């Protein structure tokens, strides 16, 4: 049981707990859906550890998870873009591109090898979405208190995580030979650090989401 407590699972469970506390009664179903997504993330992480100990290859678990990752993140971006523009064309194109690469990779190397190319494309999409969101935010005439903007910090987490993981995505094939400890290679540590940044930003974003509700109740 002890082995399931990795830095990744711990930060994910903390983020899930904060999401449950902050978003359970949220007015937006899209924000509430983040609870479900984080629950799926935690289950995937624990499932991934379990499968790797049983069968050594847990890539198929993450191949399933990437579907949820793409779906929920696109849903959230659609929700954020809708405040400024009609998001449907961008989001539908993004999802279509993702599906195309996903099917192509499954077709080419099967379900039991991780879809690295699909993940790299998805990362690039999310980076572009984040940059476009900030562009829309700057262009908008209204003022938003960014320190307490849940949208801003949610996108910040995405941008930090997916932009910074670009190097890992690029050198994916070479990374397996770069071992830092006998058990873990370099990308494991990089993603551990990026996960901490991502879930910290998201946790803060969920707290910001809860903040105005708490304030009005006082």
């Amino acid at each position, binding site marked *: 049981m002890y082995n399931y407590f990795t830095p990744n699972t711990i930060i994910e469970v903390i983020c899930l707990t904060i999401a449950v506390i902050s978003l359970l009664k949220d007015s937006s179903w899209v924000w509430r859906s983040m609870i479900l997504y984080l629950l799926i993330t935690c289950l995937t992480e624990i499932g991934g550890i379990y499968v790797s100990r049983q069968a050594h290859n847990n890539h198929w678990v993450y191949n399933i998870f990437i579907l949820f990752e793409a779906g929920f993140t696109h849903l959230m971006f659609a929700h954020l873009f809708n405040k400024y523009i009609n998001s449907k064309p961008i989001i539908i194109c993004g999802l279509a591109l993702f599906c195309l690469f996903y099917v192509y990779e499954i077709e080419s190397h099967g379900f039991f090898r991780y879809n690295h190319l699909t993940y790299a494309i998805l990362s690039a999409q999310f980076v572009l979405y984040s940059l476009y969101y900030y562009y829309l935010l700057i262009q908008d005439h209204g003022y938003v208190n960014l320190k307490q903007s849940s949208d801003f910090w949610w996108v*910040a987490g995405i941008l*930090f995580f997916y932009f*910074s*993981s*670009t*190097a890992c995505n*690029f050198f994916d094939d070479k990374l397996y030979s*770069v*071992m830092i400890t006998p058990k873990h290679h370099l990308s494991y540590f*990089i993603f551990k650090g990026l996960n901490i940044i991502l879930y910290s930003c998201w946790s803060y974003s969920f707290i910001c989401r809860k903040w105005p509700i708490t304030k009005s109740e006082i």
Partner: protein
Amino acid sequence: MANNEIRNLIIIITVVFLIAPGFLLAYVFIYNRRKKSHIEEKAQMKLTFEAEIAKTQLEVQEQTMQTIGADLHDNIGQLLSLTSLTLNSIELEDIAKAEQKIDTAIDLTLRSIKEMRLLGKLLQGDQLIVLGLAEAIRYEISWLERSGKFVISYLQDDELPAAGNPDKDLILFRIVQEVLNNIIKHAGGTQIGIKLGYSEGILQLSINDNGVGFDMDNLPVEQRGMGLQNIQKRAAIIGGEAIIVSNPGAGTNVTISIQYP
């Protein structure tokens, strides 16, 4: 490439790619703060503008009340006194003379009624602006002409846009009133020229007189602060410019140019 080199390269790239979003977020933060101060400045300017409009409305009303007070005292009051005197002096024994006096009293009463009607219109005060700037200026001129002290020429461009700007009209009308007041009180002239021109979205209001004029450079501070700065400040508030040209003995010319409507 050796493993160590790959490791170092990936670490460096990851760190750089981690710093880049940091800078981007910092830029968004700074831009957002500037946006906030811009919004606050705009709100402050709007408040100042609204306060100036309210002040101008009050001044136009005050000016109207002064005109009404003066007219009641100097004109209608005199007419009614004369009517009363005429009626008092009627002797019923002399029918022919009495008829003449009654006719005079009727004539005086009719003139009083006419004056009262004009006053009633003026009582609407700043509502004159609803009729448009040109009409309001014409009305102001007609009152001034009645004093018989000034020869006023008024030229108005036919190209004036039909749909005006009530706020700008009000400020411009108040400027006209202020300039005319200055002419009456200080200039000592006999001729006043007013021109309202419009060309390529620019409205130009020009008022000149043949009064004593003044030396722009050696104007006492207390005089400079009162009327002239007010005119320039008001013109600036509606995005315009006021140019005042005057020389001792050569009259004064005030020109205001603004984007219109």
